[in-house]
């Protein structure tokens, strides 16, 4: 009887949990499979470097990534010298100097990624009032995470005949409301990968979304690796403690087979 109660409770909980997930009127998200998925997931370093290259050459013209620092790129496998060179390509406003003036200097590894515009207003002015969001946390800011970003990037198409598309807007299957101010940013071979790997749109989207996932959560690998050790320890501890519990309670149980 008690087990029936527990089962009923579990069923109710499961129903509620399932129903509590937000409804979605857009098509089901595409899921290309990610190296960082699953309990043993890791980041594919090649994809990360490809993704960073795409960000640098394409996305960074409009999108900032202000929570990242150039020194963070060490996790992608770049050497200290490579990072210094990557940083030095950008200029940072520093100062004031002894004359009281602000001046420009080359970015250093400890600096945050230099944004494309000095402030939000300048960015909006360049984009008809729309603000390309900062991408540092974009994967954690969207339901569906990497799957959503991948679907969005590969979901641009011509608007259906019966769809009224606003001025300057673009149609995307996966963007809520289907109208997005951003024009399709990536096509096949938008970028020539440094390691000469093929770059069809699906690969570019996969690589940049891998990079963006890393950017949103650089400690993902550490989290999953620590998790494996902790879970194993806790499972072993549970077994040992259960054994101790049974032994200690045995005398209360005595007479019981």
């Amino acid at each position, binding site marked *: 009887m008690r087990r029936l109660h527990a089962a009923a409770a579990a069923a109710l909980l499961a129903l509620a949990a399932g129903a509590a997930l937000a409804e979605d009127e857009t098509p089901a998200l595409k899921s290309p499979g990610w190296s960082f998925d699953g309990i043993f997931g890791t980041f594919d370093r090649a994809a990360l470097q490809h993704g960073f290259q795409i960000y640098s050459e394409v996305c960074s013209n409009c999108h900032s990534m202000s929570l990242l*620092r150039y020194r963070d790129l060490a996790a992608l496998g770049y050497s200290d010298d490579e990072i210094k060179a990557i940083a030095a390509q950008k200029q940072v406003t520093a100062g004031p100097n002894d004359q009281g003036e602000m001046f420009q200097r080359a970015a250093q590894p400890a600096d945050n990624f230099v944004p494309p515009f000095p402030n939000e207003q300048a960015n909006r002015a360049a984009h008809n009032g729309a603000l390309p969001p900062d991408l540092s946390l974009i994967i954690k800011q969207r339901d569906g995470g990497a799957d959503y970003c991948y679907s969005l990037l590969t979901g641009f198409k011509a608007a259906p005949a019966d769809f009224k598309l606003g001025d300057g807007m673009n149609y995307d299957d996966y963007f809520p409301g289907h109208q997005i101010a951003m024009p399709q940013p990536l096509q096949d071979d938008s970028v020539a990968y440094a390691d000469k790997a093929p770059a069809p749109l699906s690969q570019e989207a996969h690589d940049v979304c891998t990079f963006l996932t890393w950017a949103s959560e650089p400690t993902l690998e550490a989290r999953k690796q620590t998790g494996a050790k902790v879970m194993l320890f806790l499972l*072993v*501890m549970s077994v*040992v*403690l259960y054994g101790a519990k049974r*032994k200690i309670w045995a*005398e209360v149980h005595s007479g019981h087979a």
Partner: protein
Amino acid sequence: MTDTVQAPHGHDGESRRDFLTLAASAITGVGAACTLWPLISSMEPAQDVLAAGAPVDIDIKALQPGQQMVVLWRSHPVFIARRTPDELKTLQDQKELAQLRDPDSGILQQPDYAKNWHRSVKPEYFVVVGICTHLGCIPEFQPKPESVGPGWEGGYFCPCHGSRYDLAGRVFQGVPAPYNLPVPPHHFVSDTVVRIGENPPGETFDLNDVEQI
């Protein structure tokens, strides 16, 4: 809430139960220690703090002989002084050396490549952490003779408790400060740029190893 589990009182010690309770106590103890570790470790300097402590390149083009500039490295004030030939002569004056606590820099307050009569990489440029080894005030740069008092040949004077150092940061006898001013890792990446916080190639030295910053 008890961390350890003890055997029931007054019952015979079955070896299996004792082993189990011992194992249970041990594993719980290990778990508790492992849980504490990240909490304590999180108080270590974070990565941005460590990055901010990276070496800095200082342009010394504008520094004139007899002048000193002050820069920040790891939140410490670092003096870069350009010594004149006359000032360098006083550093080798036996009468002056006799008044110093540690004229040969025997105590570890500088890297090996600064363990010389000028306590630096290049004699002309003196790079030193400007923190008095007494109680941490910032000493004044007083290169002119007689500026602090009669017999003063030039050096550093700490206003807090009167400690004195020569123009190579070596501390005088009879003052409260116990050690010479510490010399940080540094080397010249070019004739006009000195990098503070990094040793010359092939050298190792950590500022944290000195007796007193």
